[in-house]
């Protein structure tokens, strides 16, 4: 096997930043090249502190994002744009896809954003802790009706989904395990369950708006009898059920396959997983081993994955279709920072929805499948149109930075058509495109006969050429993939 010096492989660094981040800006790419693969990965895996979010500015000017009855997706997109810890934020998106919770039933966005915040805190920690926090999460309790799960009369909804969708997948448990797990979670509810439930069911903000929910354990409503979960018998409570679940190999495999699907290569839709093997069983085995070797640490599994050859090797590159959120956030980050208040955030929320990923409102408890689900004909048009529009103004800070960097690369104040195409592809990634794509780009840019910027007129024309070329590049299949 040929040994590759990955730390100096710019193309590989771009690959990492497309997957572990929302795609690099030119400045971030420069920084990654400077510090190298291992160090940038270390920074991603070990975010030092919470992101500094100007909540006061958001709440003062975007008033509807203060009570967060709605516009929660716009708020979250702003955080994705501004984060200094992109992997942590991508993990919140990852968990939102799996622990899919939606406002269509819950009516308000605020508790779901509290759940997203919980993902920020626990999303890269021990899987057991994450599942316990998820089980206590008020929006999950209301989403899967655990406030109706009583010691004398169980509601098995959460007991079913924690096994089927959140940890192990179909085929690793029995119907009895579902009922017994549900019994373990009896008494796990929210404060004021009757009134909160009926406000949600009636979809009413009257008389004085919504109330955010708080977890409450009601010991009197908990079933204290013996339970047998996945072969283990005892007087189990919810924490015990989570411990038993997290000990299972099926749980580790299910988690590994989800991470592989999200970060490495598009897998089959989840409902097919019980019937079809993973695309790369060896990769899954490696991640499962990491899970058990590191006390169920999600961060450790991520580290194993991002340093493995199966992630770094050429076939994994561009092997995923960007999700709408990745497309939208990546384009906005390229365009440059957003000053509050900004209607761009509301447009970004709408764009995600139109592309098929209504954040905080997944299509069902199964979340989004990803992969080819993202590229129906209509959705593809939405993807291209949104990104082209966002990247249309050469005076936006990010685009101006790109244009200036292209000029810096040139040895004189003009470029050939081929040079401009190469420079743009380099700065937008670097992006490795097919020969046919490159040929089309060269043909398109030839409509600008003079690519010099020595005077005002030439400079304006050069800006227009660069912007047009970037708009074309972002509509290419290579840019649409990650």
């Amino acid at each position: 096997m040929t040994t590759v010096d990955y730390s100096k492989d710019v193309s590989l660094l771009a690959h990492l930043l497309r997957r572990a981040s929302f795609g690099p800006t030119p400045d971030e790419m420069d920084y990654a090249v400077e510090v190298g693969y291992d160090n940038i990965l270390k920074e991603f895996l070990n975010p030092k502190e919470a992101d500094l979010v100007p909540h006061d500015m958001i709440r003062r000017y975007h008033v509807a994002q203060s009570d967060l009855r709605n516009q929660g997706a716009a708020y979250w997109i702003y955080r994705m744009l501004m984060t200094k810890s992109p992997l942590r934020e991508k993990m919140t998106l990852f968990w939102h896809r799996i622990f899919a919770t939606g406002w269509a039933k819950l009516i308000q966005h605020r508790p779901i954003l509290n759940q997203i915040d919980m993902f920020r805190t626990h999303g890269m920690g021990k899987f057991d802790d994450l599942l316990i926090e998820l089980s206590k999460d008020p929006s999950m309790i209301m989403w899967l009706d655990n406030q109706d799960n009583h010691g004398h009369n169980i509601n098995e909804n959460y007991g079913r989904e924690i096994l089927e969708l959140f940890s192990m997948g179909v085929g690793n448990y029995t119907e009895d395990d579902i009922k017994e797990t549900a019994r373990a979670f009896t008494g796990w509810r929210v404060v004021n369950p009757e009134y909160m439930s009926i406000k949600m069911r009636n979809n009413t903000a009257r008389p004085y708006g919504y109330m955010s929910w708080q977890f409450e354990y009601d010991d009197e409503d908990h079933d204290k009898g013996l339970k047998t979960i996945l072969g283990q018998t005892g007087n189990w409570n919810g924490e015990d059920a989570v411990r038993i679940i997290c000990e299972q190999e099926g749980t580790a495999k299910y988690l590994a396959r989800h991470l592989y699907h999200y970060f490495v290569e598009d897998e089959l839709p989840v409902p097919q997983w019980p019937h079809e093997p993973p695309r790369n069983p060896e990769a899954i085995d490696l991640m499962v081993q990491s899970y058990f070797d590191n006390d169920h640490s999600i961060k450790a599994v991520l580290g194993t994955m991002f340093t493995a050859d199966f992630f770094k090797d050429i076939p994994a590159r561009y092997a995923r279709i960007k999700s709408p959120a990745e497309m939208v956030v990546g384009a906005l980050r390229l365009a440059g920072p957003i000053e509050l208040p900004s209607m761009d955030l509301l447009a970004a929320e709408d764009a995600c929805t139109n592309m098929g990923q209504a954040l905080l409102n997944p299509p069902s408890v199964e979340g989004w499948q990803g992969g080819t689900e993202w590229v129906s004909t209509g959705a593809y048009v939405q993807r291209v149109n949104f990104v082209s529009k966002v990247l249309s103004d050469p005076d936006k800070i990010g685009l101006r930075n790109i244009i200036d960097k292209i000029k810096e690369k040139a040895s004189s104040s003009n470029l050939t058509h081929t040079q401009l195409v190469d420079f743009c592809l380099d700065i937008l990634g670097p992006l490795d495109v097919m020969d046919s794509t490159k040929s089309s780009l060269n043909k398109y840019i030839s409509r600008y006969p003079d690519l010099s910027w020595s005077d005002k007129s030439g400079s304006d024309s050069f800006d227009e050429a660069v912007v047009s070329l970037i708009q074309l590049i972002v509509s290419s299949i290579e840019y649409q993939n990650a």
Partner: protein
Amino acid sequence: MHNNGAHDLSKTTKKMNYVTTVGFNTDFGGRGFEHPASLAIRDDGVIFVASRGKRTSKQTIGIQRVSKNHEFFGKIGSYGLGELGQMVWPTCVTLDLDNNLFLADEFLNRITIFDPDGEPVKYWGEKGSAPGQFDQPSGLLVRGETILVVDSKNNRIQEYNLDGGYISQWGEEGVGPGQFSLPWGICEDSHGYIYIADWRNDRIQKFTSKGEFVESFGESGSSEGKFNRPSDVAVDTEGNIIVTDWANQRLQILDREGNFLIEERGKGGLNPWAEEYFEAQQDEKEARASFVPVFDTDVDDPSEISARIEPYFWDPVSVELDSDDNIYITESNRHRFQVFEFCEGN
């Protein structure tokens, strides 16, 4: 900066008495408010409340007219991107001595005048930083024949005659005396001094009527006498300084020297509009019978606590006084205002 440190609570013989809660959340117009931003009280008891609403419920955007006794007199103005009488992001309403109503809009960057019958008369302003232009105007203060506009993102105060004719301006961005960081509310005391909620500097600044800096009160924090993004200020006839301490989700009252006197977290309760609603929604009424409105929360963030505890202030954005010094606190996120009296007693 004024020292708010040591103070003697035994000097405080007054207390906050809850009077009533006026409001009701309405998404699609009708009796109630949505995200109210400000209110103005007319001598006859009619209260004008500017509802900011949201983009999915534009019918409520406008100025609702109500009374402290829970009467509803309809709405004036409407959502719209530019015609006379329209608004998008209202921030403040105030009245002149002839009962003309002035409205600031931080999206349209204009001040609109409504006559005493509620008919729009004229507007002035456009986005910019030149004299006569605005960048997100917030607070308004009528002083006889002139009006002061807190031109928030330009970090300055502009003075106009009541027809919108530009007179002067003062203030600039900064943290020093007389400088601002996104100022919001404004008021005047009985001696003509002007007080401004210097929002992102976490302080209240006091000026002469000519805009000369006098002193400032408060600093960043959540303990007594400190502020976290104060949104508005009022001064009662005794000179007490009443502040909506927005991000701390409370009302604070300081004496005229700036010493802390008392704070209030809110006591909102059901009003006749709410009671009528529950009569028509028996299932909700029955469920509410077991509702515990105030409970121990497991978070520290005052905004999240307010989101969970219905009686508490949630984003108190303005404070106004009536002629009896009753205190009216507008809460953006609970779609209501609470009324208190600051009176003698323990």
